[in-house]
């Protein structure tokens, strides 16, 4: 669906994007992460045809893509982070959508607009002026605008930022529903917990370089060195934590905090049965055993700060 080869973008001597190779498959939800100034926007602008690469190639829908390929741009829907402020405020929702339906040559525009307005619950405000819209309504309207031409590829930039919990859920459900219908979705966001819920694959860009690109689970697994297991016990006898570390060789670290026992264990292997047997043997009943998993947020911090060398190595070569 999207393929870039050695994509570069420089502004004077500053390399905003330094040789990015992306390969996004049809039908997936792809997350694009990076701190401010990492090169995310520069990459997206090149993919949208708003700016030209300094060097490198872009392929969209298996065709060589340049900003002049308006036929390919017709197949992309874009939801920017912020809708332009202070312009078009005199327009009603329906007038705004008609403008974009005209631009994209949407077939049977009135039917399509009505369908989409109904789908996100905005059909009641179709004749309301846009200046009266809340942030959440504007975001929904923006998504409808992007969906008008029934695009094969949807770019979403911070789609849920600034929304209330209900708005976040509605937009998340809409994104998942669009993806179930076969639409490829490219999301750029800072809200990593939300990306974790939505994306099947993520890429992390840092200082113009692609630091990591993998399926969510695989990426988190690659970054996990040790795991932490917490065990809830009715009352922890004195010295149990130390004995566990001494007697069970896979326990790397242990500590007791109230009635919670925390153990650091190696990344590979399932030690729950051995731990349970040990505790029972010592007259302790584990009430709950829980493994603390690495979140995308932890991974992001790890990648951008500590593990740059580890991730630039080819995983297959390990």
């Amino acid at each position, binding site marked *: 669906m999207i393929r870039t080869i050695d994509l570069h973008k420089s502004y004077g001597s500053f390399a905003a994007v330094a040789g990015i190779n992306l390969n996004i498959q049809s039908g997936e939800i792809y997350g694009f992460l990076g701190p401010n100034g990492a090169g995310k926007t520069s990459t997206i602008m090149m993919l949208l045809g708003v700016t030209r690469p300094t060097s490198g190639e872009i392929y969209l829908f298996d065709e060589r893509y340049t900003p002049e390929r308006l036929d390919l741009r017709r197949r992309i829907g874009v939801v920017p982070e912020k809708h*332009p402020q*202070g312009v078009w405020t*005199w327009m009603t929702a329906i007038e705004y959508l008609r403008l*974009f339906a*005209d631009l994209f040559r949407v077939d049977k525009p009135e039917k399509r607009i009505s369908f989409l307005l109904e789908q996100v619950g905005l059909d009641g405000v179709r004749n309301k002026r846009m200046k009266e819209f809340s942030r959440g309504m504007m975001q929904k309207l923006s998504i409808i605008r992007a969906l008008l*031409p029934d695009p094969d590829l949807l770019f979403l930039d911070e789609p849920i930022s600034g929304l209330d919990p209900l708005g976040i859920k509605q937009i998340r459900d809409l994104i998942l529903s669009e993806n179930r219908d076969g639409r490829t979705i490219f999301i750029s966001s800072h809200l990593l917990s939300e990306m974790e819920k939505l994306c099947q694959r993520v890429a992390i860009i840092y200082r113009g370089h692609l630091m990591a690109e993998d399926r969510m689970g695989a990426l988190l697994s690659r970054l996990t060195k040790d795991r932490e297991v917490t065990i809830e016990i009715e009352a922890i006898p004195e010295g149990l934590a130390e004995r566990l570390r001494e007697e069970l060789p896979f326990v790397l670290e242990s500590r007791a905090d109230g009635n919670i026992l925390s153990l650091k264990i190696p990344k590979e292997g399932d030690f729950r049965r051995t731990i349970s047997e040990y505790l029972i043997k010592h007259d302790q009943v584990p009430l709950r055993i829980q493994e603390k998993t690495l979140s995308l947020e932890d991974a992001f911090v790890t990648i951008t700060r500590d593990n740059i060398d580890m991730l630039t190595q080819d995983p297959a070569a390990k």
Partner: protein
Amino acid sequence: MNYRMNATVAIGRHRLRESLIHPGYYISLTISLLVGYAFVAAFVRSIDSSGFNYHANPLYDFVGGVLSGAFGSTVLSRVFADGPFLFAMNVSFLPVLLYLAMTSVYRFGTEKSSGAIELLTYGPSDGTSYFLGSLAKDVLLSAAALLALFLFYCFAGIVDNIAVTPRLLEEVFLLFFSAIAIFAYGILVSSVTDSANSALALFLAGFVLLAVSLVGSYAIVGGYVRSLSAIAAWIVQWFSPFFYWSLGTRAAIAGEFGGFALGIIGLIVLVVAVLTASHFIIRSRGVRP
């Protein structure tokens, strides 16, 4: 219809609608008509037994003084040889022309800095189609204003018993193409600037420079100022819509169709050149704020 043409039509229609639901265009057109009425009414009052005497009315006394001071008495007598309409048409079109050109330039700037142009160009359209759509709107509205003014002067001619000659129609065509050239300059200015204020300031500065250079080519002031303005005017004239307008107007007054056609052709070439330059600048600079 290809994608760029479709986008141009869609954006042009949107901009036209936007202009027609706001009062600005109607206000500027009303001012234009009032200015036109004032010049026609004053002209009628300036006619005495010897014919048109511009000293007989304060408005024409002022205008006549300025025109003969800047261009000489020959130009003055030629301009009013056919009545007030030629001069009135030129002056009365200015409010609409300036309103359309300045609001477009300002609008380009605000829509660029707010990200609106970028949003419009995410799909099957680009910066060039956005600007061409806006140009189409300005062309249509200026054509409508010129038609309204022309009909008004025809009506005034009948009421005041002053002949409306074909020169007025020729002037309408010249003003129409001159307006397109000025709108094209507005696009050029917008493509090289990043904010609405800087675009407007640069546009107005350019407009004044081109107008002053035209006066400089006629000015009968002496010495240093004359030499300087003549040199500046000679350099700038080839890029100036006013030069081709002046060329066409002088030919129209003298009844030389060849010169009039040359003025129109010059304006068309200028429009094409300015729009082509704008296209490449937009392509290279993009439409990002």
